[in-house]
C-alpha cells in the first residue's frame, strides 16, 4: 500500500469506534423501539457509569502499554471492608465512600511500586495483587454475602440537579481524567512513555513517576467505581467485582485506546466505549435475546476492536519507516 492509502486507512480505523457506537444504537433501536426511549437511554447511562469510571482508570495504564488485572479485586477488597465498617462499626456512608476511594488509591500505589520500582512485568505483578486482593476480601467476609443498609444504597438512586448521582460521578471522573491527560505536562508525558519508554527516559522524562501516577489513578478509579457499583447492587457477594477489569479494558479498547500504548483518550473514546458495552447488553435485553448470547456478542465486538487496534499499529509502523529515496516517497501533509 502506498503512504497516501495507508493514511486514508488509518483515518478510517481511527473512527471505527464511533461507527460501531452509532451502529449499535441504531441497530438496537430498530430491533426494539423502546431501546431509544429517553427513559431507557438514561437508564443505560446509569448502568454504564461504574464501567466508565473503571475504564477511565484502565485507560491510564493502557496508555503506558501496561495492564492492571487487579481492578476487580480492588473493588472487592474495598467493598468487603466498607461492608464491615457500615454494618459492624456503624460508619456513615460518605465516610465509607471516601475510605473505599482511598483504599483503591493505596492499592494502586502498591501496583505502581511493583511495576515502576521493582520493574516487574505489569501483567504478572497485577495478577499477583489480584489474587492477594481476592484472598484478603474472602478472609474479611468469610465468603458470606453482606446486605448493605438503605442509607448507603439510596446514594445510587439519589439525584443531583435531576441527574442520577452515578452519572454525575462518572462525568466528573471523565472530565478530571481528560483534563489531566490532555492539559497537564504529566499527562502528555504519559503518552510519551507509552510510545517509547526508552526514548522518554532519554528525553529527560521521569518514567517511574509516570508509572506510579497511572497505577495510582487506576486504583483510585477502581475504588470509586467499586463504590458506585456497590451502591447500585446493595450487597457484597464473594463474586463482587469479578472480571470487571476485563470489561474496563474492553471499554477502553473499544474507545480506541491501543494495547500497544501511547494512543487513546478518556473523552470521547473510553466514555463511549463503556456506554457501547452497556448498550449491547441493554439492547439484547430489550430485544428479548437469549441471555446466554450476551457474552458471545460482547466477545465478538471486543475481538473486532482488538483486531482493528493491531491493524492500526502495523500501519503506523509502516508509515513511520525511514525512506532512503525521499523524493519518491514524499507525500504532502493531508
Amino acid at each position: 500500500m502506498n503512504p497516501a492509502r495507508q493514511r486514508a486507512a488509518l483515518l478510517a480505523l481511527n473512527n471505527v469506534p464511533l461507527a460501531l457506537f452509532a451502529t449499535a444504537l441504531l441497530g438496537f433501536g430498530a430491533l426494539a423501539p423502546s431501546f431509544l426511549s429517553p427513559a431507557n437511554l438514561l437508564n443505560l447511562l446509569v448502568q454504564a457509569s461504574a464501567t466508565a469510571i473503571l475504564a477511565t482508570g484502565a485507560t491510564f495504564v493502557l496508555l503506558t502499554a501496561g495492564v492492571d488485572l487487579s481492578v476487580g479485586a480492588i473493588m472487592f477488597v474495598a467493598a468487603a471492608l466498607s461492608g464491615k465498617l457500615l454494618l459492624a462499626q456503624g460508619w456513615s456512608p460518605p465516610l465509607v465512600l471516601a475510605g473505599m476511594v482511598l483504599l483503591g488509591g493505596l492499592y494502586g500505589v502498591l501496583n505502581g511500586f511493583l511495576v515502576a520500582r521493582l520493574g516487574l512485568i505489569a501483567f504478572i505483578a497485577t495478577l499477583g495483587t489480584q489474587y492477594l486482593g481476592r484472598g484478603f476480601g474472602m478472609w474479611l467476609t468469610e465468603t458470606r454475602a453482606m446486605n448493605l443498609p438503605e442509607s448507603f444504597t439510596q446514594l445510587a438512586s439519589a439525584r443531583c440537579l435531576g441527574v442520577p448521582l452515578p452519572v454525575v460521578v462518572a462525568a466528573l471522573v471523565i472530565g478530571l481524567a481528560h483534563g489531566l491527560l490532555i492539559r497537564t505536562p504529566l499527562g502528555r508525558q504519559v503518552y510519551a512513555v507509552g510510545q517509547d519508554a526508552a526514548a522518554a527516559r532519554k528525553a529527560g522524562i521521569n518514567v517511574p513517576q509516570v508509572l506510579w501516577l497511572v497505577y495510582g489513578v487506576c486504583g483510585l478509579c477502581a475504588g470509586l467505581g467499586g463504590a458506585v457499583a456497590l451502591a447500585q447492587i446493595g450487597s457484597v457477594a464473594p463474586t463482587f467485582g469479578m472480571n470487571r477489569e476485563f470489561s474496563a479494558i474492553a471499554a477502553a479498547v473499544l474507545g480506541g485506546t491501543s494495547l500497544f500504548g501511547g494512543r487513546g483518550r478518556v473523552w470521547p473514546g473510553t466514555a463511549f466505549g463503556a456506554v457501547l458495552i452497556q448498550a449491547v447488553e441493554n439492547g439484547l435485553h430489550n430485544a428479548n435475546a437469549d441471555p446466554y448470547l450476551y457474552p458471545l456478542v460482547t466477545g465478538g465486538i471486543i475481538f473486532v476492536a482488538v483486531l482493528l487496534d493491531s491493524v492500526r499499529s502495523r500501519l503506523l509502523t509502516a508509515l513511520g519507516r525511514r525512506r532512503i529515496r525521499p523524493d519518491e516517497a514524499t507525500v504532502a501533509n493531508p
Partner: protein
Amino acid sequence: MSPLLVFEGITKRFGGVPVLRDITLALPAGITLGLVGENGAGKTTLMNILGGNLRPDAGQMTWDGRSYAPAGPADAAAAGIAFVHQELNLFPNLSIAENLFLTRFPRCGGWPLIHRRALAAETTRWLREVELAAPPDTPVERLSAGERQLVEIARALSSQPRLILFDEPTTSLSDRETRKFFSLLERLRARGLTMIYISHTLEDVLRLSDQVAVLRDGALVAHGPREEFDKDRLVTLMVGRRLDRLFPVRQPAGEPVKPSRAAERADAADQTSQASGRPKVASVSSPSAPVLEVRGLTRSGVVHDISFELHAGEVLGLFGLMGAGRSELAQILFGLEPFERGSIRVRGRPLASPRPIRCLREGMAFLTENRHEDGLALEASIADNLALVTLRRHARHGTGWLNRATLAEAVRGIREAVRLTPTAPDSAPVRTLSGGNQQKVVLGKWLLAQPQVLILDEPTRGIDVGAKFEIYQLILQRAEAGAGVLLISSELEELVGLCDRMLVMRRGELVDELRRAAFDRERILRAALHERSVA
C-alpha cells in the same frame, strides 16, 4: 577569537580496539565546521563524547574557556549544545508542539496546567524559523520524513543552544526541503551560531562550512579552512589503507576453481563438509550459471531498479554508506520485506513472492547485521542456536521426535568447523560468549544448512581482529564449496580484501560495479558518496 570548544588528546577504545586516537581540535565561536570521514572513522564516537553519552579514555574538552566533562546528555543540553541526529527521536503520537516542549511546557501561573496559547505561539515561532508550514498541534505521525526532520531541527533550535551539531541532516529531506534547510543554515550562521555539520555529501560540506576536518581510522588527518579543500582532496584523505587488517589469500574470480587452491584449504573445507555429511565438490557448478539473479528490483522509496547476478563460487561485495539501502535490499531478497517490481531467480528458478521459509528451501541463507536482535536467541544454548535452522533434518521419520544423537553430532561438527571456543559447553547460553564467538554461532547455524546463496550483512561488526580473520576464512571456504556469497560491509578494506567483484550502492540504486583487478578505493568511495546538484 578564543575557541568555543576544544578537544584535547581525546582517545577512546572499544574492547581494546582504538576508535579515536589523540584527537586535538579547536572550534572558534561562530564558525561552521564540516566533519567528514568514512563509516567507522570515529565521527559518531567523537560526537557521543561531546554529547555526554560516552566518556573518553584519555584527553579532555574545554567549553567556553572552562573544563567540560559531561556525565550525560542533560549536561550537554545545560551547556547549550544541541544535536540533530540522523535517526529521528520524535514521539509520533504527540503533536509538534508537545515534541518540542515535552519536558519544559509553558504553564499557567503556578498550576501544573499547560499554557496552550503560549505553547502554540512558541512553537509557531520555531516552526517559522525552519519554514515548516504546519499547525503546532499537528500530530508528528502525519508528517513526512522530511517534515519530521525539520521538527527535529526546530526542537534543537528551541533550546536556544550555542552549538548545534547536525549528523547527516539531509538524508530524509527531498531536494526542495534540502534547499530550504540550507537557507536556514545560512541564516543561523549569519546570526553567529556555531555549528558542526557531519555529512557524506561532500559538496554540501564544502559549501556550508567555514572549516573542514577529516577523520580517518579514528585519527584527525586534516583540519583547515574550507578553501584548502576540494572534493578530490577530501576523498583522497578519507580513503586510507589500514595496515593492521589481514585477509586470507584470495585469487581472482571468474576463473575455474584450481586444484591447487582447493588443496590449500582442503583440511578446513573437509571439516565443513564432514559436519554436513555431503561431499565437498558435489555442489560446485560452472561459474557461468548464476545462483542468484536479480532483475529490476524496485520498492518505491527504498530501492530502485536493482539488477545483478551472483555466481557460484563468487564473493560479491556490496558497498555503500550508511542508509544507502544495502540491508534493505538484503531483507527484500530474503523475503523479509516486500517489493513492487522486478524479479528474483535462485538457481534458475523464479522466486515469485519470497518468504524466509521459501528462501531457505531454495538454498538461501541470510546473516543479519544485528546479531543480538535478529540473529540469536541470546538466552538459549549454543547447541539450540546452532541447530535452529536445520532442526527438521533431525526429526525421526514417523514420530517427528528429535534424534538427539545426530543433532549432537552435527553441533559438534559445526563447532569444530567454525572454531568456536572449546571452553564453552554446548548448553551455555549464547549471551555468555564474546562477540566473535557469538557471530561464529550465527554463521555456523547457517553453514549447517549448506546454503548455495549466502547473504552476509556486516558479518564482522564489533568483533576482534582474530575472530574477523576466522570469519573471513569461513566465508571463502563456503564460496569454494560452490556457494555464491553476497557480502555487505561498510568496511571498504574488508571488501577489497575478500571480494571477486564489487557493487556500489547509493540512495537505493546500484551506481557502480568493479572487478577485483579494477578495485580502486577512491573510485568506490566517490561512487558511494552522494552527488548533489541542489542550487
